[in-house]
Structures are given as structure tokens and as C-alpha cells.
């Protein structure tokens, strides 16, 4: 006992063999009613006080009745809702198709960039330039340039629909982000994994396909989902090139009536779609962290 180690828990006179190896968890402390409920009560009281005050401050403003009429008019929301919902369905369709294309094209870009060997130098350079270029440009600019510029060329054999080119711009831009995400996932896989796979006689492609990518994609799944949430909202940018999505339908109603309640209706629709996505992302992130911690112990 002179080693200077801190005293271990529940050391008693019992024989060392029968002693548990780990200290027992501390006995559950009995919480008094005060300790148990007071924090929750304080939380609730604070929430009521802060939001109540904010609500009071807003609704007591002299202009509030007018704002309420212009932004939160249930009648106007109901009147604009069918159109906004129809536009929102377009948002969802475009989102799903773009998301698929972005995930696929981003992966291809990431693979291009991870290829080693002198033969692939042009692909690597292409990818680096591509990512620098399209990650550095605002999506809105790309949507405007693609949506208005390319159709104006009147290229034979290519569609000239604004929706098509706007969606293409979204894919091109977002794929640059997703490529970087994939790449970070690929680089996060330990070198030993690829060394081991090569030692088993797998080719470079097989190593990537069977050893690296499955781990890499699982690593970055939460981040990719985050990108998917961001994309869901950015699809609304297509409204600037004449696509009648939810935002555009809401703006049309606003322009016709000068009533902004349609924008609130559109906002609610986006929340209904993005909040479950965000929760799913949170859940997956948490699960992923637990998985890693288990792996570490």
C-alpha cells in the first residue's frame, strides 16, 4: 500500500481473488424531490418567460395587427396552399433526382482524385480544377448561367428546359462538395487497410471497391445526409429561372395579393420535410459515434 496509487474502490478485508476487478459503480444517490424536479421547473419557467416575453414584444408592437394580417393570415395561407403544395412536390422530385446524381457523380470525382499512378494524372488534374471551380462559385450564379445561358445557345439535340439545366447546375455544384466529403472519408480509412488488401492480392480497384469504400462511405454518411438537407432547401433556387416550385408559387401569390402568408405556408412545408431529415442525421451521427467508441474500447 506504499506504492502511492490512489485507493481503489471497495477495498476491504476480503481475499484478492474474490474481489471484483473493477470498482463497483457508486451507489445510486437518492435525489430529493427538490433536486429532481427543480431543474426541470427552472427550464420550463425560463422557456415560458423568454419566449413569452419575445411573443409579447412582437405582438404588442404597434404594427403587429398589420403584420399578422400580411404574414399570418390563415385564409391567405389556405388560399395559396394548393399551389404551393404542388410546387413543393416539384421541389421534392427535383431534390430526389438531384441527390441521386450528386451522390453518384461526387463519388466518381472522389475516385478520380484518389487514383494513383502517372497514367491518371489528367483525371486528377481535371478533378482538382473541377472542385476548385464549382465549389468556389455561388450555386445561384451557376443556376442563372446554366438555366439561361445554355438554352440560349440553342444547341441541337440538347434539352432547353430551364428545369433541366437548373437541376444540372445544382448537381454540378453539389457534386463538388460531395466529392470532397467522399475524399475525406477515403483518406480517413487507415493506410493499413489498403496495405492489407494489397497484400491479399487485390488490385488497386478491388482494394478501393471492397476494402476502402465501404468504410469510407459509412464514415461520411452523416455528413452526406447534412448535404442532402442543405440541397432540399437550395432546390428553391431554381425558382429564379422560371421554375414554378414552392417558393415561386408562394411569391406569385404574394405578388398578386401583396400578402406574404403564402411564404409562411411554403416555409412550413420545407420544415415538415427537412426536420425529419435533420433528426435522422442527428440519430445516425450519434449511432456512428457510439460505434466508433465501441471500436476504441
Amino acid at each position, binding site marked *: 500500500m506504499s506504492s502511492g496509487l490512489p485507493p481503489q474502490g471497495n477495498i476491504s478485508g476480503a481475499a484478492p481473488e474474490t474481489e471484483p476487478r473493477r470498482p463497483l459503480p457508486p451507489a445510486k444517490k437518492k435525489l430529493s424531490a427538490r433536486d429532481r424536479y427543480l431543474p426541470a421547473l427552472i427550464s420550463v419557467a425560463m422557456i415560458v418567460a423568454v419566449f413569452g416575453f419575445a411573443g409579447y414584444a412582437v405582438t404588442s408592437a404597434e*404594427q403587429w395587427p*398589420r*403584420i399578422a*394580417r*400580411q*404574414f399570418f393570415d390563415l385564409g391567405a395561407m389556405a388560399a395559396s396552399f394548393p399551389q404551393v403544395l404542388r410546387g413543393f412536390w416539384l421541389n421534392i422530385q427535383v431534390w430526389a433526382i438531384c441527390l441521386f446524381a450528386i451522390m453518384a457523380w461526387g463519388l466518381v470525382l472522389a475516385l478520380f482524385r484518389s487514383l494513383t499512378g502517372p497514367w491518371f494524372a489528367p483525371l486528377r488534374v481535371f478533378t482538382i480544377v473541377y472542385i476548385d471551380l464549382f465549389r468556389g462559385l455561388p450555386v445561384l450564379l451557376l443556376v442563372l448561367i446554366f438555366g*439561361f445561358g445554355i*438554352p*440560349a*445557345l*440553342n444547341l441541337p439535340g440538347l434539352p*432547353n*428546359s*430551364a428545369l433541366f439545366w437548373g437541376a444540372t447546375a445544382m448537381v454540378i455544384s453539389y457534386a463538388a462538395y460531395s466529392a470532397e466529403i467522399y475524399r475525406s472519408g477515403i483518406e480517413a480509412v487507415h493506410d493499413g487497410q489498403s496495405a492489407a488488401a494489397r497484400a491479399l492480392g487485390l488490385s488497386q480497384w478491388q482494394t478501393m471497391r471492397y476494402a476502402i469504400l465501404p468504410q469510407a462511405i459509412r464514415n461520411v454518411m452523416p455528413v452526406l445526409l447534412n448535404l442532402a438537407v442543405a440541397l432540399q432547401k437550395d432546390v428553391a433556387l431554381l425558382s*429564379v*429561372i*422560371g*421554375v*414554378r416550385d414552392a417558393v*415561386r408559387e408562394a*411569391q*406569385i401569390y*404574394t*405578388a*398578386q*395579393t*401583396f*400578402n406574404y402568408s403564402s411564404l409562411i405556408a411554403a416555409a412550413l412545408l420545407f420544415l415538415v420535410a427537412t426536420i425529419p431529415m435533420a433528426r435522422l442525421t442527428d440519430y445516425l451521427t450519434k449511432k456512428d459515434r457510439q460505434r466508433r467508441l465501441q471500436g476504441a474500447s
Partner: protein
Amino acid sequence: MSIKISLLSSLAVAATLAFGTAHAQDNTPDDPRLFTPGQLTVATSDPVFPPWMMDNDPSNGEGFESAFVYALAEKMGFAPDDVVWVRETFDQAIAPGAKNYDFGIQQISVTEDRAQIATFSDVYSQPQKAVVAMPGSAVEQASSFADLLQVRWGVMIGTTDLDYVEQIIGVDEPAVYNDQVGLFQALQGNQIDAVATELPTALYLTAVQVPDATIAAILPPDENDYGHGLIFEQGNDLVEWVNEAIAELQSEGVIDALVAQYLIADPDLPVITE
């Protein structure tokens, strides 16, 4: 004695002035209800397009709306130098909250719905609608609404053209663009075949902005679109004074003369009525 009387009477005059100030100055350039008393502050869009205003300069008095505002200001007792212009977007014009001007003018159509949110003056112009298309388009051969239904339509947001195309012609989901530039880019890119717009705007577009395009036809007016009004912050009571001035300009034929000067179309254009 006479001195006393004159002193008394001048006191009386002074008292009248002191107590009657608010009323005495109403409907004069020093009206305290003005955004800046002594000046008429008028908002318009940026940029502004002919024939409504020329050279993107509202203050040169040229173009229908600029000339109209200066005529209006003169009726209300303002010197041309007392007319001050501010620029705003369409969205700013319809947004709630205090405005930094007395009224706005940018071809804003008066409708029932809009009048519940903003205050409008009496209508000062009611232009016809026109169809603009590229040469060779099917629209050129159109002679009925049924023909017009066969093509892809585009309109600009914030105008009553969308209502017109959807409700009068019966088109399903025309494309809706943020501005004229987008609208005509889409027309040139063959993304749409036909653009509905007000005739004066169409005249300028086909003459200057997109010289390739032509006015294919004139369309009948929409009864629900009352025409252009000046837009005021809701509840602004300057509107009555302005309405009196508009009525005077109308009865004197000033507005008709401005229409004849700036907003007249080729009388040979085909008219499609249904």
C-alpha cells in the same frame, strides 16, 4: 386708436395662424403629412424602362410616368426641383412597414386583393395587353385563344400578366420569371414561345431590348385589372389630395396627351379577342 385696432387685428391674425396651422398647410407643399414637408418624395423601380421613364432617369421628366409625376407635382403646387426620387424594388414597394417616400409609381396594377394591403390612388393608366414572340413562332399565326393555348407562355412576377394568361387565356402553368431580362432570355433561348406584357412595355422590348422579337397581337383587357395606380403606405391620407390632382389632370386631357405621346401602338397590329 387706429394703431390699437391694427395691433388687435394683427394679434387675431397671429392667433388664427398659430391655432390653424395644421389645417392651413394641408394640401400645400408644406403639408406636414408629407414624408419630407416641402418636397414630394416619389419611389420607383431600379432600373426603369421606357416608355414609362427614359434613360433610367426618373428626374428628366421624360417617359409617361416621369412626365405624369411632374404634371401631378405641378398640380399639387410643387416646383420640379421639389420632386425627389428614391429607388426601390417591387418587393420593397409591397413590403409592410414605414415607407421612405410619399408614394410609389412603377406600373403597379390595382386589384381587390392588393387594395386590402396597400392604399392605391385612382387609376392613371389602363394599358392594353400584348403578346410578344420571336419571328417564325406559332404565335404569329394565332387568331384565337385556342391557338394561343398551344404555345409555351412566360410572364414576369409581380405583374398582372400571370393572372391574365392563366385566367383570360386559360393557360396552365406559364413560366414565371423574376424580371424582364430573364423573361426575354428565356424567349430567345426557345424556352418559351410567347410573352404576355403590357403594350407600352412590349413596344419598348421589341424596339430596343429584343429587336428580333415582334408584337404578335393585342389582347383584350382584363376586367379585374383596374389599371395602374400610385401605391401608398396603407392608411396614408395624402391619397385624397393626390386623387384630386389626378382627376384634374384627367379632365384637362393632360393624361390623354401623355398616353398619345408615349404609349401608342401601331394601329395595324392584329387584335385577338377570344
